[in-house]
């Protein structure tokens, strides 16, 4: 049973206010939802990034649970160490408490610099949930491209000029990479809070590694007004740019199938980072993005039906 908002609201948030994330930041909505889904105390690790710096400015911490920041590329390994300590101390009878373990990383800390550390942690099978809050660029250092930045997006290292229209390459399929590891793997969006909370609950109940990739719109880096953070997460789902699915025991399941798939331009157009794509010269880029989304969606549908066969 998924907790209701009424039940969730009755508990104190595990992330306190007073953090210094931007107004309307998607990352803190994601963190709140994930953490509040845990019925056990949690230990949180975070890679260097917006969330980490904004929530731990000494002597202020927003974490009402134990928290550790180590470095940028090693949220997975750091949490592996915490979980190993838990196992050892339990076995030796030195500790009674029970915990869930949650590691956070942005897309830079997960898709790029922290991928090896995450992969190692997954392969070793530590009981932890790794959450990537994907805001599609290095936002903490001021909007640079990452392996998660969509093709065509403007960032300060994928510029728009006479010879280039934003990022040249498509984003990588991190959720697919993680699904290839086994464990419990899902993709979620804060707009679909029930689905997200349910996935977090499933991850916490799973006796092994789990990974949830959550889209975390960034008003500053995507260039949209702060009140529309959830709306952009929603549009990403409705256009099938950001499909909601999960992989359990190697089986794919799509959790939300929009009745009508909105054109991806509905998601792109209001975002300042894609503004240049709507000039005539870049019409082919829009087509290519739509094709990317369609291919991704078709592939997912095929994977789902292939998994239903046996």
């Amino acid at each position, binding site marked *: 049973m998924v907790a209701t908002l009424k039940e969730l609201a009755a508990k104190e948030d595990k992330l306190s206010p007073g953090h210094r994330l931007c107004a309307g930041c998607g990352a803190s909505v994601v963190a709140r939802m994930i953490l509040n889904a845990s019925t056990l105390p949690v230990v949180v690790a975070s890679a260097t990034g917006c969330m980490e710096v904004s929530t731990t*400015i000494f002597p202020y911490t927003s974490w009402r649970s134990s*928290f550790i920041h*180590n470095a940028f590329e090693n949220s997975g*390994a*750091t949490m*592996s*160490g*915490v979980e*190993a300590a838990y196992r050892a101390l339990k076995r030796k009878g030195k500790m009674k408490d029970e915990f869930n373990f949650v590691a956070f990383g942005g897309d830079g800390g997960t898709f790029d610099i922290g991928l090896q550390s995450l992969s190692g942690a997954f*392969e070793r099978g530590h009981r932890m949930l790794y959450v990537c809050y994907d805001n599609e660029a290095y936002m903490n250092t001021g909007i640079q491209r990452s392996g998660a930045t969509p093709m065509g997006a403007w960032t300060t290292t994928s510029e728009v000029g006479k010879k280039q229209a934003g990022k040249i390459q498509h984003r990588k399929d991190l959720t697919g990479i993680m699904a290839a590891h086994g464990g419990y793997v899902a993709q979620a969006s804060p707009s679909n809070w029930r689905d997200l909370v349910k996935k977090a609950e499933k991850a916490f109940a799973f006796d092994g590694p789990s990974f949830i990739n959550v889209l975390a719109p960034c008003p500053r880096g995507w260039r949209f007004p702060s009140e529309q953070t959830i709306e952009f997460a929603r549009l990403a789902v409705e256009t099938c740019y950001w499909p909601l699915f999960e992989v359990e025991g190697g089986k794919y399941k799509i959790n939300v199938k929009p009745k009508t798939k909105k054109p991806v331009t509905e998601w792109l157009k209001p975002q300042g980072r894609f503004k240049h794509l709507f000039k005539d010269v870049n019409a082919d880029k829009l087509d290519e993005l739509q094709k990317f989304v369609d291919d991704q969606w078709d592939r997912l549908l095929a994977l789902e039906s292939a998994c239903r066969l046996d």
Partner: protein
Amino acid sequence: MARVEAITGNVAVAEAMRAVEPDVIGVYPITPQTIIVEAYAEYVAQGEVGTEFVAAESEHSAMSICVGAAAAGARTMTCTSSQGLALMWEELYIAAGLRLPIVMFDVNRSLSAPINIHCDHSDTMGARDSGWIQIFSENAQEAYDNFIQAVRIAEHPDVMLPVMVMMDGFVISHSIQRVELLDEDKVKKFVGEWKPDYPLLDADHPVTWGSFDGLGGFYFEYKKEQYDALQRAKDVSQEVAKEYAKLSGREYGLFEKYKMDDAEVAIVAAGSTAGTAKTVVDTYRQNGIKAGLIKIRLYRPFPAEEMVEALSGLKAAAVLDRSPGYDVLGGPIFQDIQSALYQSGTSVPLVNYIYGLGGRDVLVSHIEKAYEDILNVAKTGKVDKKVDYLGLKE
């Protein structure tokens, strides 16, 4: 009952680890350290230890795992060599800055390029200012003894810093030596139970590790306190050594003085070379020449005052560095000693030899050459070449 065994340096270290039986080991294999990892994996497989043995996917992750485990409240160890230590570089500073008492064994090996798997001290020297305590060992027995003492030094409330213990790759790590192993329960009693101040794993007392030091924060003050703690490790290492002597009968100083009482010339060396140098000293002594040796043990914090005291009055001394010093001022140990002498206003004619890089054999004749040179300096009072090389091919 202590037992005597004929084992390699690597097995001696694994035995020390088993006796301490840390809560967590985060580790990655690399030559010549691998045998330690393999031996410990065997203890785990046989159910002889209750350690959580985490075989990481890189040394960077191995040290990251150690940082996470130590902050969680576990007694934590690792071991590495060469490129492995280099890959840990970022995490070394974090472990020290977070004041985590992680204990690591570094089996000394050269650094690439060209790739070379044999002994020199370049790896350790690259980490000499990372805030870790560093302890050199001459042989397998010392590696064993130092590693056990390192736990107590690291976890001492006046210190709370990570410790790195070293021995020479292959020369010591792979050669069979006589080692006296202590009873494991006595070792466990000696290291005691580890009670951390702020473990992550305490549901009633949530804590935040790795906080962000904002503008106008305390970074500077933390670094000063870290420096002070590192200096305190000098005295703490001696307290621990005294207690360990009661247990083992083997006492360790900040460094070892060999035939230094009336010495007129001396060599300063670290690692297995000191063993070779002792036999050279003995030969000189038989011929009535007053030669001595100082063997480095505690390298960080560097016991500068004590070193100056030990060297003062010598007519000449040679410092042997088993790592390349890339600037004109010589190798790292030489620079430390030269600075210490200069600061205290003590003048001892000093020469530096870079030797043994990439596992180049350290021959008696090389060490004799150094002694002959300083005997000549003692006679003439003149140093021709401040920094020279021993054993370089023509």
